[in-house]
């Protein structure tokens, strides 16, 4: 392997032109997508639009693409980076020259990503994240893999040796694959997901599509077909019922398929690699990502599972870190972990975490009252909507809704608990999913005791605990309990001189 010399300004791999070009073209089409459709439709109808013939359109398009290609080449030529002793230098820009210098010690994270195109031409992109805002992110879009890994190592080494002894350097090389997902578990994970979300998504998608293309469909005379079809079935109520059931079944099947495919694409080849200090996650089918977790920056841990998943031993763990943008945050998610693996990982990420430490306390039964009210409100809306849309016959929906609502309230209360130990706060919640939020007491940024005017009479309050990445709520405890939690946590934060990051 030839080692690349980073001390001189170098360009990225020449394949970068392709990546930049493809990205720009994609962006261009995304921006003018609606315009294209409008043009295309009017052209189809009238063969010309404002004296522009299809050939001219095509020529224009080719021209635009050539311009984009030239821009991509210029961009590539002007994109140079190098490493000095302590800093990373980057100069970009065709007309406006930009020079960015990042001190190595300020680098928060280095990601290696590979999207579909990059996989084909065998390059990776390297993303450098600093503690600043989104704009200060740097992405080198085409490097061959050894170079990227080397650069990542060089960027990190300096940052680490700054704080700790040099021995960490060699340990970075030690790779210990801790967890590797099998397709079978991935399939189970996809199947056992909460399908309500994908169900709703598909429903809205179909509805939206139908509304968009209503006119078009009508034009094609499809409408008539459907009407005929429906009329045919209206002969017997049974047939109608079967059709409805079939439709619902198809949608459920689709949402199932959607969940499975989505899980596969995102978590394909999920791999958790253990280093001495950090944990690395590799995953993705079309978009390969490689991320590293640093325990000191972790603010919240969320463990999610549900009944079915529990049966198969599937737990997912998402890690919320400080200073990570929302889009990246989603990637810090490890699915399909066994219980032991989960506990091991938790112990790795949180020092001395003990699942059974501290007493479990529950919110006051007031919790159920609020959930019931919520469900009542939701029920009223559903009833009003179905009455409005489908008429009085639709009231049977209550037969389904009321038991569902009752179960919702029951499970929501059953799963709600909180546990405060010396160093950790654990909050459980969820209805279909079982969600467990874990955070360390010294990472708290602020505490809020909240009480509405109605809760005042009942002497009930909620506590909202904020960390640098998320706020969690301990709902509806008694006021005195809320205050004592608040006092205790404040004491914990203020008496120890521990940094939150």
């Amino acid at each position: 392997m030839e080692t690349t010399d980073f001390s001189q300004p170098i360009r990225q791999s020449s394949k970068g032109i392709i990546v930049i070009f493809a990205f720009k073209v994609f962006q261009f089409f995304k921006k003018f997508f609606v315009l294209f459709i409008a043009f295309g439709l009017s052209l189809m109808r009238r063969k010309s639009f404002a004296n522009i013939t299809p050939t001219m359109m095509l020529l224009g398009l080719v021209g635009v693409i050539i311009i984009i290609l030239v821009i991509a080449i210029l961009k590539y030529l002007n994109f140079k980076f190098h490493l000095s002793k302590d800093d990373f230098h980057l100069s970009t820009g065709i007309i406006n020259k930009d020079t960015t210098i990042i001190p190595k010690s300020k680098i928060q994270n280095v990601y290696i990503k590979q999207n579909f195109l990059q996989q084909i031409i065998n390059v990776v992109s390297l993303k450098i994240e600093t503690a600043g805002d989104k704009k200060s992110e740097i992405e080198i879009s085409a490097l061959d893999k050894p170079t990227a890994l080397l650069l990542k190592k060089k960027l990190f080494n300096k940052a680490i040796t700054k704080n700790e002894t040099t021995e960490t350097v060699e340990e970075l090389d030690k790779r210990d694959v801790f967890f590797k997902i099998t397709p079978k578990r991935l399939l189970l994970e996809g199947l056992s997901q909460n399908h309500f979300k994908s169900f709703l998504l598909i429903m809205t998608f179909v509805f939206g599509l139908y509304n968009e293309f209503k006119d078009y469909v009508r034009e094609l005379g499809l409408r008539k077909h459907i009407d005929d079809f429906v009329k045919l079935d209206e002969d017997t109520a049974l047939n109608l019922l079967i059709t409805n059931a079939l439709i619902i079944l198809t949608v459920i099947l689709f949402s199932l398929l959607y969940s499975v495919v989505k899980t596969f694409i995102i978590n394909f080849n999920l791999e958790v690699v253990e280093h001495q200090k950090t944990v690395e996650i590799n995953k993705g089918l079309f978009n390969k990502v490689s991320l590293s977790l640093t325990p000191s920056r972790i603010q919240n841990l969320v463990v999610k599972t549900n009944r079915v998943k529990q049966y198969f031993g599937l737990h997912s763990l998402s890690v919320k870190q400080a200073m990570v943008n929302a889009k990246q945050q989603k990637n810090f998610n490890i699915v399909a972990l066994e219980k032991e693996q989960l506990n091991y990982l938790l112990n790795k990420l949180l020092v001395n975490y003990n699942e059974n430490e501290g007493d479990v306390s529950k919110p006051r039964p007031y919790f159920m009252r609020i959930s019931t009210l919520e469900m009542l409100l939701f029920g009223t809306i559903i009833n009003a909507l179905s009455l409005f849309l489908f008429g009085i016959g639709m009231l049977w929906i209550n037969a389904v809704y009321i038991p569902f609502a009752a179960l919702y309230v029951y499970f929501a209360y059953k799963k709600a608990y909180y546990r405060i130990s010396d160093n950790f706060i654990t909050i459980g919640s969820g209805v279909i999913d079982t969600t467990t939020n874990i955070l360390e007491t010294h990472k708290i940024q602020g505490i809020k005791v909240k009480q509405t005017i109605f809760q005042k009479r009942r002497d009930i309050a909620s506590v909202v605990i904020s960390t640098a990445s998320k706020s969690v709520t301990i709902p509806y405890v008694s006021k005195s309990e809320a205050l004592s939690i608040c006092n205790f946590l404040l004491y914990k934060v203020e008496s120890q001189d521990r940094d939150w990051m």
Partner: protein
Amino acid sequence: MNFTNLQLQTESLPKIEDVALKPISKSYFKIIRLNKLAIYAGLIGFVFLFKYFIQEKEEVEINIWYLLSVILVFCVLNFIVSILAFKKRKYAIRAHDVIYAKGLIIHSMITVPISRIQHVEESRSWLARHLELSTLKIFTAGEAGSDLSIKGLPHLEAKQIKEIISDKVNGNN
């Protein structure tokens, strides 16, 4: 150690409920009043504008007065709530944290440990400058929910608090 054990301990912990919270400056109420009046005037103005634009239709005439009375009732209620809520705006600085309480319908008391504060800002609007008031903004690294903005502090006091906090924040580092 578990939580029941800690509850005994909590007796001896410094209690947040014992802190004497200080109300914010009375003259800040003038600013609230002016702001509210501007909003009400805008709302009522909108009603008349609305009326002006669809004057042609006859049955609308009655509806306008309904609408106006609804809005007036809303304004009066809103004003009463804001008077009562004003008394709930209180703050306190302890050796290790800043406390700010507010809200009538949803009362909340936010506490931010000084060691977690990233920076402090003191800002004054045009009106506040005339009334010798200022707003103290306290930023943490946390979610938006844990940032404080204490409005209507006497200017001098705000300055003092700002000094105290920045001294402590810088001293800790």
